[in-house]
Structures are given as C-alpha cells and as structure tokens.
C-alpha cells in the first residue's frame, strides 16, 4: 500500500513538480541571501528562507502521510485539525463554563468527524457538525450554567469546530470519492487542491511583495494588495489549469476549479485575518517557523476544501 503511489506515474509527476519548485525556490532564497543589503530587506529574506525551509518539511510530511493511503491522509489532516483548533481555542476567550464542551469538541466531535469519513458514512459526516454539534454545543454550555456572554461563547466554539474540523476534513474526504474512470487516483485530487491552494497563497505573497501598491482591505490585512491578489490568483489558476492532466477535469474545468480554489482560499485567509484583528493578535501561533501558526497556513484550505469536494461530488461522481 505504501508504495502504491509509485505506480501512479501522474502522481509521481506531480510530486516531481513540487520537488522542482522547492529546489528552485531554495536556490532563489540563497541567491537573495547572498545579494542582500540593508536591514529591512534582510528580515524579509530571512523570513522568506524560513518559509521555504518550512515548506520542505510540510511537503515531506504530506508525501509520507498520503503514501499510506486514505488512512495516512485522515491521520495527517486529523492532526492538523487538532493543532489548528488548539490554536484557535487558546486565543478565543472561553470561560470556565465551557470546559466540558471544549473537551467534547477536541476528544469526541473532531475524532468522530474523521472516523465518519474513514467509514465513508457520507450522510452522517456531512451533517454531524452543522446539525448535531450545533445543537450539542449551546446545550452543553447552558447546562454548565454560566450565562455571561453565552451567545458569543457558543458561536465562537461552534465556528472553531466548523472551520478547524468540519471544513478541513473535506480535504482527506476527497480520497474516498468514487469518480467513474478515476478510481484509485484520488490522491492526485488532494494534491491538486493543496498545490493550487497553497501556491495561490505563495504567489499572492510574491506578487504583493514585488508590485503590490493598492491595499484591498487594509484594516483587515495590511499585506493584501490588489496587485498581489490579481497576480497571485491569475498565476495560480494558470498553474492549476496546466495540471488538468492529473485530474478528471478537462482543461477548461480545471481552470474553473483552480479559480474557485484561489478565490475561496483568498476568502478564507481574509476571514481568518479579520478574526485575528478582532482578537488582537498577528499570528495564531508559532508552530511552523516563519508562517505563524498552523491555522495561518491552512486558513485558505478551510474554505476551499468543502466546496471543491462538493463540486466534484455533484458533477463528477454521479
């Protein structure tokens, strides 16, 4: 099972592409480091190189996990969900009365979500958190008896479970779709989603640094510019379109899917930035060097994954 990935030559090509990107960006990072001058550019370049180092690690972890098939992907994303929710709940103000509800969120609701995907119970996994947890969370807080900021607390906890567990879990759920004529190649879809989504982030950052002038929503995220947005989305969509051969899509469909992933990725990042401004912090954590926290890295994936999943399920599965 572990080496099943090697028999899928298109998957191998995707990985080779990722490897090539990493090598090229590492080289660029080192050249910039050698040529740098001035303190301001120094910190930017150090940050860039730290990000590249983190990318090597993330890519390696991803590749190893997905090589173990659906189980590996579920475990990997389950772990990411856990870490993301941990950052989120740490920074969101909760009260003593939320304790048991939080315990359930971490140790029952989230694992159950991934378990349901594992046993392919689509009907339940699609509604467990939006319906059952939605009813459970406020009830459990109410039973604890503390009514101070009740609605905010219930809403904040539910939102955290939705984003960190529910939304993100749709990424590994891709591996369990049965697309006619595409059986056994679902790992490519997951990789496609992650590549386009994360490259959209990276390219928006790069374009923004290179030619960014006009801020989109400077109150929310001072680093997001129109130039970065348009350049990043356009180039990541182009990249995604060029990867159509690895997917069940035609080139045109692939372009549409990539555009959708990029736009939703942008939306996810923007919403998470707004939350961070609201709480009054810059990053959700310091777990990944140079990237802020886990949640900062996957915020774009959280919004793109469920819609990508449902579009494929609706148009390609039946």
């Amino acid at each position, binding site marked *: 099972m572990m080496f099943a990935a090697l028999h899928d030559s298109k998957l191998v090509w995707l990985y080779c592409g990722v490897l090539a990107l990493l090598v090229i960006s590492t080289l660029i990072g080192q050249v910039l480091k050698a040529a740098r001058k001035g303190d301001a550019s120094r910190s930017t370049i150090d940050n860039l190189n730290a990000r590249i180092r983190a990318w090597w690690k993330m890519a390696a972890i991803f590749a190893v996990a997905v090589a173990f098939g659906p189980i590996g992907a579920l475990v990997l994303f389950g772990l990411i969900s856990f870490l993301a929710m941990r*950052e989120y*709940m*740490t920074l969101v103000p*909760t009260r*003593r009365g939320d*304790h*048991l509800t*939080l*315990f359930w969120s971490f140790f029952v609701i989230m694992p159950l979500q991934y378990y349901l995907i594992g046993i392919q119970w689509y009907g339940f996994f699609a509604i467990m958190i939006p319906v059952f947890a939605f009813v459970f969370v406020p009830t459990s807080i109410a039973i604890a008896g503390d009514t101070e900021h009740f609605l905010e607390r219930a809403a904040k906890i539910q939102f955290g479970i939705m984003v960190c567990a529910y939304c993100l879990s749709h990424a590994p759920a891709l591996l369990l779709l049965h697309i006619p004529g595409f059986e056994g190649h679902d790992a490519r879809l997951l990789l496609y989603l992650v590549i386009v989504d994360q490259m959209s982030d990276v390219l928006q950052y790069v374009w923004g640094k290179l030619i960014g002038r006009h801020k989109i929503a400077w109150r929310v995220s001072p680093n997001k510019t129109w130039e970065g947005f348009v350049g990043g989305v356009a180039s990541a969509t182009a990249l995604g379109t060029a990867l159509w051969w690895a997917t069940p899509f035609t080139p045109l469909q692939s372009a549409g899917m990539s555009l959708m992933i990029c736009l939703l990725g942008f939306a996810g990042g923007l919403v998470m930035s707004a939350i961070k401004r609201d709480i009054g912090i810059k990053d959700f954590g310091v777990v990944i060097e140079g990237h802020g926290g886990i949640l900062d890295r996957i915020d774009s994936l959280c919004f793109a994954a469920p819609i990508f999943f449902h579009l494929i399920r609706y148009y390609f599965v039946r």
Partner: protein
Amino acid sequence: MSAGIHPVASLLAAIARGISGVQVQWAGCEPDERQRIYFANHSSHLDFVVLWSALPPDLRARTRPIAAKDYWEQRPLRLYLAKNVFHAVLVERGAAAKTQHPEEAHFVGRHLIDQMAEALGSENSLILFPEGTRGTGEKLGPFRSGLYHLALHRPDVELVPAYLENLNRILPKGEFLPVPMLSLLTFGKPIQVEQSEHKDDFLERAREAVASLRRIGNA
C-alpha cells in the same frame, strides 16, 4: 536525595507537556546547577508537572515540589504520586494560622521552615506555590510567608519567579478532564530578600515578580 527520576514521573511529565503544549521561556535566567527555589502562580494540578518537566533532566532529579499534606494524603493514589513518584515534601498548610497560641504558631512555623530547609539539603532545589492553593487563574492570590522565612534561612539559594499561563484553562481546579490548549511558562529574574526588608514588603515584591511575567491580558 538524588534518588533518580521515577519512570511514572517521566511519563506524567511527557503527558503534561503534550496536553499543555507548553512553550518555555527563560526570560530572566538560564537553567542552572545551583540550588534554587522556583516559585510560581498556582491554578492547576498540571502546574508542578509542567514546571518540573521544563527543567533539563539532570536538574529534574534534584528538584522537589512542596505540596500540601492535607490534600495529598487524602487518597492512597495521591499519596503515592506525591511521595514515591515526585518525592514531594509534604507540609502542613496554614497550620500556624490555625492555632490560637502565638508561641505554638511560631513553633509550627519553625517546623515547616526546618522541613523545607532539610529538603533543600546541600544540592536540591524546590518548587513552591506561595499562594498555598489553586486559584482561578485570573488573579494572583496573596503569598504566604513560608517563602520569606525560607529565604532568610537559606540566603545562598536563588529565588526564581515563574509564571504558568493558561493552565487554569487546560485543567482548572475541580475538573478532571483536560482541554488541550496551548500554554506558556516564563521564568523571571531571580530575587532576594533585601537588607532589613520587611516580610510583607518582600512577599508583595515576590508576588509582583511573578505577576509581571504574565503576558496575555496582564492584570
């Protein structure tokens, strides 16, 4: 007393670190061989284990917690954990305050200090929670005087303040199940009793030294 580390202690330390995702900051000093009394805020059962596990392994074997006898002797498992696993120094809490006679209070107080001084010996360090009990984590309670008397008794021992942040949300008093949020442990700059410093002044200064290490929602 360097009996080595009980395997259960190492296991619990690893679990506590995992659950609390603690980040350790040595802001005012570095880990050191010398004898120390680490004193910190107290809001969770995890406090001691997390602080203890933040020390390098060779120091851990020589660092013992001061724990309340009345609480830790209540159940056999607690007593086993305190005595055999963590080599805790079990002391009577507030015994001096309970008695009516000032002389007796003085005697009991003396006994307490002697007990802690004996535990320090010539090479051990101690972990002490001067509030004497677990609080809610929102506010630091008043410090009890043991720290002051012990410091006078052993001026050679360094007093290191530490702040444990967020552990009250991970495992608050009265809860049994932990919520794995992230936490922060900050070690501050060592303090000492100044020449002819009054007890209350010192205790307030020590309390301030701990409180000032708080980073989120400084109150």
